[in-house]
C-alpha cells in the first residue's frame, strides 16, 4: 500500500511541471502562435525561482520570480514575432538556445546549493486518512494550482468572451482583424501567460522535484510539453492527462530497477523520448482530424496590410 501511494506521489511530482508548461503553450497555440521556446522559458524559470529562493529564503518570492522570468522570456519572443514579425519557428529555437545559455550563466554560483524541502499543505482530518489522505490532501500548493490552471483555461476557452476571441484569432487572424480585434495584443498577452506558466513549471523542477540547480536540468521537458499539446488536440484536460501519462513513464523508469528489472540505465532513460515520438505518431496519423483540431492560423505571421 505504501509503495503504491509513493509511486502515485512520484507520478504527480513528475507530471506537474509538464502540466504547467503544456497548458501555457496550449493557450499560446490557441491564439495561433507556435512558441518553440518552452524549453528556454522553463530553464530560465528554474534558475530564477531557485536563485530568488536562495537569496531571499522565501519560496513565494522564488515562485513569483520564476513567473516573471518566464513571462519576460516570452515577452522577448512576442517582441520578435508580434512587433518585428520574425519567423516563429526560428525565434522559438533562438529563445531556447538563448535561455539555456543565460540560465547556465546565471546559475554558475548556485550549483551545489539547496533550498531545502518545499512545504506541503496538510488538510486537517482529511489529510490523516490512511492512503487516500496522503494521495489527495497533502501535496504542495503548486499541484493544486496546476489543476486549477487546467480548469481555469478550459473554462476560459469554453465560457468567456475573451476566450472566444482568442480562439477566433487562432483560427483566422485576418477575419478577426477585419472585425476589429487587436490580433497582436491578444497574442502578446497569451504569450506572456504561456511564458509565466513555463517559468512556473521550471521552478517546480528546481524547487520541488529536485531542490537543486543543475545545468540543463529541464532535459527536454519543454519539448515534451510541446508534444503534449499536439497529443491533447489543444484541449486542456487532455493535456493534463498526457502529462500524467508521462509522469507514469518517468516513474516506471525510476522504479524499474527497484523491481529487479535488469536493463541498461541508458535504455530506460530513452523511454520518455521514445514514448513522446510514439504518441505523436498515434495522434497525427489521421491527417484530416489532426489538421482540423490544430488552430488554422498556427505559426503564420500576421501583418495587417497583407
Amino acid at each position, binding site marked *: 500500500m505504501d509503495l503504491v501511494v509513493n509511486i502515485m506521489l512520484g507520478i504527480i511530482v513528475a507530471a506537474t511541471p509538464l502540466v504547467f508548461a503544456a497548458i501555457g503553450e496550449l493557450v499560446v497555440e490557441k491564439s495561433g502562435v507556435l512558441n518553440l521556446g518552452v524549453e528556454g522559458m522553463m530553464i530560465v524559470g528554474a534558475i530564477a525561482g531557485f536563485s530568488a529562493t536562495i537569496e531571499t529564503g522565501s519560496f513565494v518570492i522564488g515562485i513569483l520570480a520564476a513567473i516573471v522570468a518566464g513571462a519576460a522570456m516570452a515577452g522577448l519572443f512576442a517582441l520578435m514575432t508580434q512587433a*518585428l514579425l520574425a519567423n516563429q519557428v526560428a525565434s522559438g529555437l533562438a529563445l531556447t538556445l538563448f535561455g539555456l545559455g543565460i540560465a547556465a550563466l546565471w546559475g554558475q554560483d548556485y550549483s551545489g546549493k539547496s533550498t531545502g524541502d518545499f512545504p506541503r499543505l496538510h488538510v486537517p482530518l482529511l489529510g490523516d486518512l490512511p492512503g487516500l489522505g496522503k494521495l489527495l490532501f497533502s501535496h504542495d500548493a503548486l499541484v493544486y494550482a496546476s489543476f486549477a490552471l487546467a480548469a481555469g483555461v478550459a473554462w476560459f476557452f469554453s465560457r468567456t468572451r475573451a476566450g472566444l476571441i482568442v480562439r477566433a484569432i487562432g483560427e483566422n487572424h485576418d477575419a478577426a482583424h477585419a472585425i476589429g480585434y*487587436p490580433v497582436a495584443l491578444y497574442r502578446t498577452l497569451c504569450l506572456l501567460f504561456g511564458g509565466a506558466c513555463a517559468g512556473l513549471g521550471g521552478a517546480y523542477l528546481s524547487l520541488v522535484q529536485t531542490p537543486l540547480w543543475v545545468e540543463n536540468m529541464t532535459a*527536454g521537458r519543454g*519539448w515534451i510539453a510541446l*508534444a503534449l499539446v499536439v497529443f491533447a488536440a489543444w484541449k486542456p484536460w487532455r493535456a493534463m492527462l498526457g502529462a500524467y501519462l508521462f509522469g507514469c513513464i518517468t516513474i516506471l523508469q525510476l522504479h524499474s530497477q527497484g523491481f529487479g528489472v535488469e536493463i541498461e540505465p*541508458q535504455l530506460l532513460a530513452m523511454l520518455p523520448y*521514445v514514448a513522446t515520438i510514439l504518441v505523436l*505518431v498515434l495522434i497525427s496519423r489521421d491527417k484530416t482530424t489532426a489538421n482540423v483540431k490544430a488552430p488554422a492560423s498556427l505559426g503564420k505571421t500576421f501583418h495587417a*496590410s497583407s
Partner: protein
Amino acid sequence: MLRLETRKEPSRLMLYATPFVAVVLTMLAGVVLFAALGKDPAKAVWLIFFEPLTSLYSLSELIVKATPLVLIAVGLSLGFRAGIWNIGAEGQFTIGAAAGGAVALALYDVQGVWVLPAMCLAGTLGGMAWAAIPAFLRVRFNANEILVSLMLVYVAVLILGLLVHGPLRDPEGHNFPESRLFHDAATLPLLIEGTRAHVGALVALAVVAITWVLLQRHMIGFQIKVLGQAPHAASFAGFSRPRLVWFSFMVSGGLAGLAGLIEAAGPVGQLVPALPVGYGFTAIIVAFLGRLHPLGILLGGLLLALTYIGGEGAQIAMSLPSATTSVFQGMLLFFLLASDVLVNYNIRRVARGPAVAPVSEAEE
C-alpha cells in the same frame, strides 16, 4: 508612430547587410552583458572576436571548429528553405560518429587507404538512417518533424553512451567509458603539421561548392526554393512535398553524420560520451546567419567558430563561465531574426489620424 509596410520584393541590400548589423549589435549587447558581470567589456569583446585572428594556431582551430558547423548547416539550409525543419542534427551527428567510429574499431588491426572512406560512408549512412526516422514519420504518419527529430537527439546521445559503456569500450581502458584511440589509418590526415587542422575542412569546402551548384543549376534546388516561397505554386506545379521532405532529411542527416565522423576521426580521435558538444544546434544559427546560402554559411560557420575559440580564450583569461559562448550565440540569432524586418518591410513614419490609422488603432 511607426508602421511597417510590406516591400514589393525583399530588399537584397538588407538581406546581405543585416547579418553584419546583427554581429555589431551582438558585440554591443556583449559590452552591456560583461559590464553587468563586472568584467572589462572592451577586453572581453577583443578576446572573443579579434584575439583568435592573431595567431596561426587559433586560426587553425578556427578551421577545426568551422568544419562540422559548415557541413551541418549546409545540409540544414536545404530543408529550411523549403520550410522543412530538421532540428535534430545533433542526434544525426552523434549516430554518424558512432557508426563511423564502430567501423574504425572493427577494423582496428587493418591498415589500408580504404579504411577512412569506409568510415566516412558508415558515418554518412548512420546520420541518414537517424534522419530517416523523422522523415518517414512525417511523410507516412504526419508527425511533426521538429519534435520527432529533437526527441531523437536525446535518444542518440544515450545510444552513444550505451555503446561506449558496452560493446565499443576500450578493453584496456580500466572500465572507463571511452573507446580505443583510433588507429593511424583511421585518423584524418592533418592539413598543417603542428596544428589540429585536418582534411575534413576540404570536404566541407567541396560540400559548399556542390550545394551551390545544386541550388543554382539543378531542378531540385528550384523545387526547394518554390516550396519555401510559394507552397501553393509548388503544389500546382506538381512538386511532391514528401519527396522533398525525404531529400532534405537525407542530405542534412547524411552531412550531419559525416560531420560527426569527421569530429571523431579528426580532433577527438576516439569515441567519448561527450563527443556531441552542440554543433548540431549551433549549425542552425550558422544556417540563418549565412542566409541559407552555401557561401554565406561558410562565412557564418567561421564566425561562430570564432565565438567558440574566442569564448574559450576569454574563459581562461578572464575567468568567464563557459555558458558565455552560448549566450552570445543565442543573442546573435535573435538580432539576426529581428533585423529581418528590414529585409521584408519598409518602416514608415505615419501621422496619427483616422485616414491612415490601421484598424487595430481605430478600435482603441
